[in-house]
């Protein structure tokens, strides 16, 4: 069984953290992953940086630009992750735009993921339809789970379709926005979370976008299986470096008030 599915069966709200590979320093990737696991994070999204990350806001854009400047590349990332399964056991997901994967070769990329011990992929600009028609069989044959996004604008029908294609979890984008655009949730989000919860989807949902601390983590996971923090963690890295990772994670997991 894929590590992602296993993790989803645990009886707890999951915290997943996104960071951009090669940021702040080229060789930080493995250390950050290890520190995240040891701080109690449940799942990690390793960002493969892209020159034109059009679904991302300035924070993640800037980290991608810096990572590329530092020398990060697809080849380099796989090299860094070569022995990652010797030290890390939580699910690892690569999040990257489709073009670098296409240039690497989709199948070659999947093979590498399998070899490395990557459990799944999030490719924001690979639509579910194209995946379903063209790439699903490849992903399947290397045991990779591909994760799809839904947003408050996604129609009911489409959510059901995505649910049917998905085999891990659904990435529930909290509001129609780029990453880091908004922080915190209002009525709109709460209603949206409720609405999805009531759909009784086959896949659990993990909420992303807008989660930055314990308060928003609690809000997001009231009706969902877990939550993903991206921009807030990148900001933390750029402000405090790798040093404070465990403090950051703890502050999210444990409520400060009470």
């Amino acid at each position: 069984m894929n590590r992602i599915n296993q993790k989803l069966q645990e009886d707890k709200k999951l915290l997943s953290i996104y960071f951009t590979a090669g940021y702040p320093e080229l060789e930080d990737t493995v250390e950050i992953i290890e520190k995240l696991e040891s701080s109690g994070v449940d799942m990690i999204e390793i960002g493969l940086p892209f020159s034109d990350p059009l679904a991302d806001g300035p924070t993640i854009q800037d980290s991608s630009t810096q990572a590329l400047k530092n020398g990060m590349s697809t080849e380099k990332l796989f090299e860094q992750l070569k022995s990652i399964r010797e030290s890390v056991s939580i699910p690892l997901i690569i999040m990257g735009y489709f073009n670098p994967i296409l240039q690497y070769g989709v199948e070659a990329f999947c093979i590498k993921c399998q070899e490395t011990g990557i459990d799944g992929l999030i490719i924001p600009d690979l639509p579910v339809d194209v995946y379903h028609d063209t790439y699903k069989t490849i992903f399947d044959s290397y045991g990779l789970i591909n994760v799809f996004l839904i947003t408050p604008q996604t129609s009911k029908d489409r959510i059901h379709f995505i649910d049917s294609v998905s085999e891990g979890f659904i990435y529930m984008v909290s509001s129609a926005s780029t990453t880091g655009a908004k922080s915190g949730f209002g009525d709109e989000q709460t209603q949206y979370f409720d609405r999805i919860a009531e759909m009784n989807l086959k896949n659990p949902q993990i909420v992303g976008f807008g989660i930055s601390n314990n308060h928003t983590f609690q809000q997001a996971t009231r009706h969902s299986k877990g939550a993903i923090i991206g921009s807030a963690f990148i900001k933390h890295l750029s402000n405090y470096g790798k040093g404070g990772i465990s403090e950051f994670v703890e502050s999210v997991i444990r409520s400060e008030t009470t």
Partner: protein
Amino acid sequence: MSYNVNEKGYYGDFGGAYIPEMLYPNIEELRNNYLKITSEASFKEEFAHLLKDYVGRPSPLYFADRLSKKYNTKIYLKREDLNHTGAHKVNNTIGQILLAKRLGKNRIIAETGAGQHGVATATVCALMGIECVVYMGEVDIARQAPNVARMKMLGAKVVPALSGSRTLKDATNEAMRDWINNPVDTHYIVGSVVGPHPFPDMVARFQAVVSDEIKWQLQEKEGTEKPDYLIACVGGGSNAAGTYYHYLDDESVKIIAVEAAGKGIDTGESAATSVLGKEGIIHGSKTLMMQTKDGQITEPYSISAGLDYPGVGPMHANLYRTGRAEFISITDDEAMTAGLELSQLEGIIPAIETSHALAVFDHKKFNPNDIIVVNLSGRGDKDLQNYIDYFKL
């Protein structure tokens, strides 16, 4: 064999809609409605009315006597430079604003390189009284100052794109991000035949008025609808798409697409996408694009802000791959020389983008009886300072 789009939004291997889920509803809404709306009688009427009375169409098909003599062939210039706002871009923005109104949108965003599309968008927004935000690379803001001024006069907000090469590609990223953040009330008026399906097809259809007119104008002047050659410059490819549209599947009409070689194909400072590009995904479309081995999009270079784009529309990628069109790359220097030549031979100062198309005559010999139509895609008012500096006039 058809060179037009198929039902799934592909031109051969190219096209499609590689978009984040956040954009899906917007794109879906467009895809479900664009053909229906644009084929309604009331739409067609309003579109035709504005093209005639507001834009000033039909644009003339002008026989360039002195240019023809110089190159010993028959050269017609399709005068898109005479359109309101000074380029072909407005054909598309008129179409899209009418569509946006019918979709109930009350806010418009756009990307722009040379500023022509930004001006054309700001213009139709003013005309309709709709809020307008234009994204423009910081580098382009500097080199196309007159168009920035025009957008401001028209009441548009010009937002500088500060990421990447700070040119057209980055402005497009920013516009897409804006659209992701404003999915309900906002329509994104894409400025060329690029982006996710249905944009390439939609923009091509709005620009198709160009070849529609060429057909009857040439019939009037030469007794035939068919030229021997069609020539257009290709940034994203919208003026070219408009020029070729009704001739795409008639292979007796030869097609020449002109790309910007910048300082030269091999210099690393170029924007000649077909030669230097590989298949990939840019701005939601599978097409040819300039990129590293690793799939990172390359920063292109051209003296012309409107051609300074690392991709090309999927229609053109397919024309290249199938050999339907001949692709020619023109350097900065060749283009500038051709622009000065047209100014002094015909009294028409072309946009630097257009000058690339005109430079073909120094590259390729035509027969005296060949009928050649060049899309004079825009006027050079926005480029005066560049010309003056370049030639030290």
